[in-house]
């Protein structure tokens, strides 16, 4: 079996696949690649299946070697035209910090074959379910490649734009035009954003009612508004339940952008079309 030897990491490298659905009722976050289209593209470029695990690299700093030559692909942050490359045995692959964006995805033909936990190889950074974060010195098993990568038939990368937001379950906890205020303002990504949530600075979203909301189930993309009024967009490692009201829900197709926004960058929201026309759109 091929193995990857990790020589160095940057601020955070984790193993991710499509996540661990079905355990929220036991308190387990879903986890999974934050920029799912980029991870899927990387897998596709090296001939992997959609459920194979990749490495999610925050900024840069990853360096590794493989025992056996293998196809690899690096997608995500700032990489508009990624291709599969041959990594010879013993050669060092380095992921440099990208000029734009935040998270890169490294797929290796055969997939990162760490043992799955509850059906997934994803690291969850909130509750610690799944493989530990990847550190220098780690040796990662690689699965059997399914064959040579096929000629490029990769989908067009999604286009960035304002985050489309659907009404949330607790819009009635806010002033009547709160969703319109969210969509009219420009927010700035806060430095404490992470895999749990994209934290935003900007105009506060005032509440109409005081008091505490009983803890309730949360979804990916939920725009949760704590008492500070600063919205947080819940991402893959969000807690399965939460006690602050949810004003809106960012469309799942736009969440990849939240994975690539840097602290200090601007974010805008726009009302999502209602479900019927959204279905027609796709």
């Amino acid at each position, binding site marked *: 079996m091929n193995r990857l030897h990790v020589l160095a990491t940057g601020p955070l490298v984790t193993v991710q696949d499509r996540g661990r659905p079905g355990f929220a009722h036991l308190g387990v976050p879903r986890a999974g690649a934050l920029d799912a289209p980029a991870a899927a593209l990387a897998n596709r470029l090296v001939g992997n299946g959609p459920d194979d695990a990749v490495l999610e690299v925050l900024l840069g700093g990853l360096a590794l070697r493989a025992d056996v030559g293998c196809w690899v692909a690096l997608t995500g942050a700032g990489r508009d035209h990624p291709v599969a490359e041959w990594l010879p045995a013993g050669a060092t692959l380095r992921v440099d910090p990208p000029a734009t964006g935040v998270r890169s995805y490294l797929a290796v033909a055969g997939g990162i074959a760490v043992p799955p936990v509850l059906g997934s190889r994803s690291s969850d950074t909130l509750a610690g379910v799944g493989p530990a974060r990847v550190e220098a010195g780690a040796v990662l098993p690689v699965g059997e490649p399914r064959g040579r990568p096929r000629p490029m038939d990769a989908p067009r990368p999604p286009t960035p734009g304002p985050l489309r937001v659907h009404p949330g379950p607790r819009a009635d906890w806010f002033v009547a035009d709160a969703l319109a205020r969210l969509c009219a303002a420009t927010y700035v990504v806060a430095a404490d954003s992470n895999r749990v949530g994209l934290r935003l600075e900007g105009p506060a979203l005032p509440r109409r009612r005081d008091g505490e909301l009983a803890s309730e*189930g949360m979804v990916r993309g939920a725009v949760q508004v704590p008492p500070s009024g600063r919205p947080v967009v819940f991402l893959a490692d969000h807690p399965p339940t939460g006690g602050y009201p949810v004003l809106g829900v960012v469309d*799942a197709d736009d969440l990849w952008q939240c994975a690539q926004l840097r602290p200090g960058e601007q974010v805008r929201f726009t009302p999502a079309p209602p479900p019927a026309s959204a279905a027609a759109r796709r």
Partner: protein
Amino acid sequence: MSGSVQLRPVGPSAVLAEVGDAGSALALATWARAHHVPAVEVVPAAETVLFDGVADHVALTALLGGWQPGERPAPGPLVEVPVVYDGLDLDDVAARWGTDVAGVVARHSEVEYVAAFCGFAPGFAYLAGLPAELAVPRLASPRPRVPLGSVGLAGSWCGVYPTASPGGWRLLGRTDATLWDVDRDPPALLAPGTRVVFVPR
């Protein structure tokens, strides 16, 4: 108890069912799973059930329309949790309950609890059953580290810490039962619906 279910959309692929209390939420979640609800996640909480990963809203709404709010599921499995009652807050809870430590142990261990929902950490179950008059407030400031297996109270909930973590629950004792094990099915010892009794050791 609420006499009806209010459905609130949570974006295009999830629905929050508001039922008013934890017992009804557990009942609805259990009933919905037994009826093969078309959802990836069914998450009961204090007053609601979240259905996430819903592809067919019409089918979900039709199914939930068939639930009778008074309906209660068959009792879940019974788990005995052995407890050494030596928690840091025993004296405090005894004072709040107007009894002594032996009285706290007796009252806490005579109740049959039911795991209503999980939250806070994997396998951390909110256990219902303590009489409302025995409710105790959370600590004013949480402890930075509560050891694994600690048994505590917050409001009228009882809970057992599956891992060491910060926490503000008032601690009565500790257990060596394994609350969370990813190699076990289900991984949570106290999954929603499980009945729980604490056995003094």
